[in-house]
């Protein structure tokens, strides 16, 4: 399945957003996800299924002033 993660094309076998986050090496706890411009709540990460062509944003907190 092909997705667009943070603007780049990614091919994946993951079926949920939570799996995708883990497969990229992040802890789902530390990442916020948007699927097709809608924010996914933490408690829904495991239940949100991916579809071909989904546009996904994954962001996390970094240092800032």
């Amino acid at each position, binding site marked *: 399945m092909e997705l667009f993660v943070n603007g780049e094309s990614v091919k994946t076998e993951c079926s949920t957003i939570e799996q995708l986050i883990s497969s990229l090496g992040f802890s789902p*706890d530390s990442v916020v996800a948007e699927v097709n411009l809608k924010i996914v709540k933490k408690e829904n990460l495991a239940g949100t299924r991916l579809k071909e062509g989904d546009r996904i944003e994954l962001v996390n907190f970094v240092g800032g*002033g």
Partner: protein
Amino acid sequence: MEDFLRIGNIRFSSRLLTGTGKFSSLDHIPQVLEKSGSEMITVALRRVDRHGKNRNILEYIPETVTLLPNTSGARSAQEAVRIAELARAGGCGDFIKIEVIRDMKYLMPDNAETVKATRMLAERGFIVLPYMTPDPSAAQQLEQAGAAAVMPLGSPIGSNRGLETKEMIRIIIEMSHVPVIVDAGIGRPSHAAMAMEMGADAVLVNTAIATSGDPAAMAEAFSLAVRAGRNAFLQSMPAKLANASASSPLTGFLD
């Protein structure tokens, strides 16, 4: 005597806000928080770095410290709202520091967009702390739009030049019904003390702490200066005089 800073529904004992930007190592952050006693700290939000280290900055911040995510990177009110919602979904709570900046040289905030963002985010239940160019009318508009505090800049961010906008900040403090937090440009403890002596409710210091040789020691220095300035403000300092006024008896010794 108790002297709390109240923002939203929270009471803070410390009037020094800190930031997490520009540290050479994130390991400095817990020490900075401990030495300064700071109870609120800023963080930013960015796309995950798929090729870098994945250290979670939140792990360096004790639970007792209030997180103040900022909307840095926003070029418009709309973008600021999107970033704020992502930050809240990330579990950072309802506090948000609005930054909307279009000028990439001096990084001066855009007050007009900031007023819009403040209104939108206050309506969505955020505790909104807008970072602003120090314009008294804009401060009034931010307050009317629902800001929980206003954050005028002292001088361009990261410049360490102190309170170049002092006279505008003085007017903002006089007019404001919400806390005034001086943000940006505070490069030395004396700058922080001066802001507090003028009646600012708090200051935010990031660059001057993070880029010093010993961030924890510098954080403590700023914390002392903030307390010094606040105490002096509460005692209402004596006035400046045009002439001298002797501190010893003025008579000649054997007159």
